[in-house]
């Protein structure tokens, strides 16, 4: 059964230096507050896994928490580049960043395999592209019935997965709805999991389109209102699109970035929203 605890305690006990950490949320429900706590606790040498690195990983990378990134699309959606990500790849600042690069379909299937307790997934993908020669974790596999050649990708099995959801009940059952991306698979694929939620309630009233993570499949739940800001929580908050636009200028310059992080994350208490 999931432990209901504070964000600070959950991050301290679940996220260790050198871990493979997945934080998911497809535009929606991105666990920014938890990432900020990881930054405040000074985790290092993380292998960060995420389909769409987004601002959340730009911040972790720029603060030197990551040694590697496993991903499929690294941009500021609708705005442009992730400058900290680019600076790490192009210039090795603040430390070199090793990349393992896939397509969305590949990453999604890798989480599916992880959730299913299988060592790999089969898909149609990557064929004819330059990805296989630059990414070790892509292989061919032959169908034992038809002889057809398909693509195999290995399971993702993070040490810890962190997601944000709308609600949990007091037993630790988690409820999310709207666009739920690969969060369920990412949690089920991991050895440990932390879910931050907008609120903890007595009863989870059913919602159309909901995805439930039963308490016994989650390690820890922490109540962090606005914990997805500047992304959004369907039914609770809207996306802070201005923040995404402003981030371009903040992140473009190393000093501006560091000053912003110092003021808004490092000196900040455990709050969800910093603008």
């Amino acid at each position, binding site marked *: 059964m999931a432990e209901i605890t504070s964000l600070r305690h959950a991050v301290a006990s679940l996220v260790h230096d050198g871990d493979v950490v997945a934080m998911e949320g*497809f*535009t*929606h429900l991105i666990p920014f507050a938890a990432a900020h706590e990881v930054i405040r606790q000074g985790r290092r040498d993380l292998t960060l896994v995420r*389909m*769409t690195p987004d601002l959340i990983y730009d911040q972790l990378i720029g603060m030197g928490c990551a040694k590697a990134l496993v*991903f*499929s*699309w*690294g*941009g500021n*959606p*609708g705005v442009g*580049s*992730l400058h900290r*990500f*680019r600076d790490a*790849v*192009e210039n090795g600042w603040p430390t070199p960043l090793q990349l393992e*690069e*896939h*397509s*969305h*379909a590949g990453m*999604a*299937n890798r*989480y*599916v395999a992880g959730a299913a307790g299988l060592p790999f997934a089969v*898909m*149609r*993908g*990557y*064929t*004819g*592209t*330059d*990805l296989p020669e*630059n990414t070790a974790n892509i292989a061919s596999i032959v169908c034992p019935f038809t002889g*057809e*050649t398909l693509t195999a990708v290995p399971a993702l099995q993070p040490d810890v997965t962190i997601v944000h959801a709308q609600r949990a009940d007091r037993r630790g059952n988690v409820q999310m709805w*709207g*666009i*739920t*991306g*690969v969060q*369920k*698979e990412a949690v089920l694929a991991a050895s440990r999991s932390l879910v931050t939620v907008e609120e903890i309630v007595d009863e989870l009233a059913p919602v159309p*389109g909901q995805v439930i993570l039963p308490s016994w499949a989650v390690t820890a739940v922490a109540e962090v209102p606005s914990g997805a800001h500047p992304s*959004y929580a*369907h039914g609770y*908050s*809207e*996306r*802070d*699109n*201005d*923040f995404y636009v402003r981030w371009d200028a903040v992140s473009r310059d190393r000093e501006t970035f560091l000053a912003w992080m110092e003021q808004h994350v490092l000196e900040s208490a455990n709050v969800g929203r910093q603008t």
Partner: protein
Amino acid sequence: MSDDWSADEMMTVAAARQLRDKTACFVGIGLPSTAANLARATHAPDLVLIYESGCLGAKPQRLPLSIGDGILAENADAVVSVAEVFNYWLQPGRIDIGFLGAAQLDRFANINTTVIGGTYASPKVRLPGAGGAPEIAASCREVIIVVRQNLRTFVDRLDFVTSVGFGSGPGDRARLGLRGDGPKAVITDIGILEPDPRTCELTLTHLHPGATAEQARAATGWPLAVADDLRTTRPPTAEELTLLRQLEASKTSSQAGAGVA
């Protein structure tokens, strides 16, 4: 180019016209999303919009600002997991048209969105990467590419093949086991390029009003093939322009208001 509309507007309208009603379209954010929603507002009210965030049959009331904009989930026929979008909907070839952009494009409509210059490990410019594009390019029945035409983008040789158009020419898609038909058209701010049925090489078949073949050649990093019967794109109608501008305005107003919530 006319004073009445911009080249980007012409490009969006031309892209929208490529979409047939009652087909399913895999939509990326930005210009493809604008074009798909314009098509839905004009000649294709039953166009099925599919976003890789998991929204099947999205019917946004304004232009979405991101691929995971909540408005996409609100009136969608169904919201499914990202894995399901790719595995149950894209991979089996259920989706008629895929819409892609490009940072670099070659004469066989292969696409690079990964790195430019240097090496893969140490690139001059690190681009966002593949996203859904490799499998969209492989599995949609047809692909439409929307991209501004210039020498930086239309290159003789890609620095990285992220998504396959026609590979190195005729027969390559079949050899690679790619099941969709591949790129059907490249819509630019100058005109429309279509693959030659025999050679698969992109050929300029339409010029937008006011554009010239010389202008297109000058914006292309290989000797551009031009169709004998080069036609002129029908200019945007008043209705198309009005609806397009309403869509763009809905995006701006929601963007301005979105930070308040």
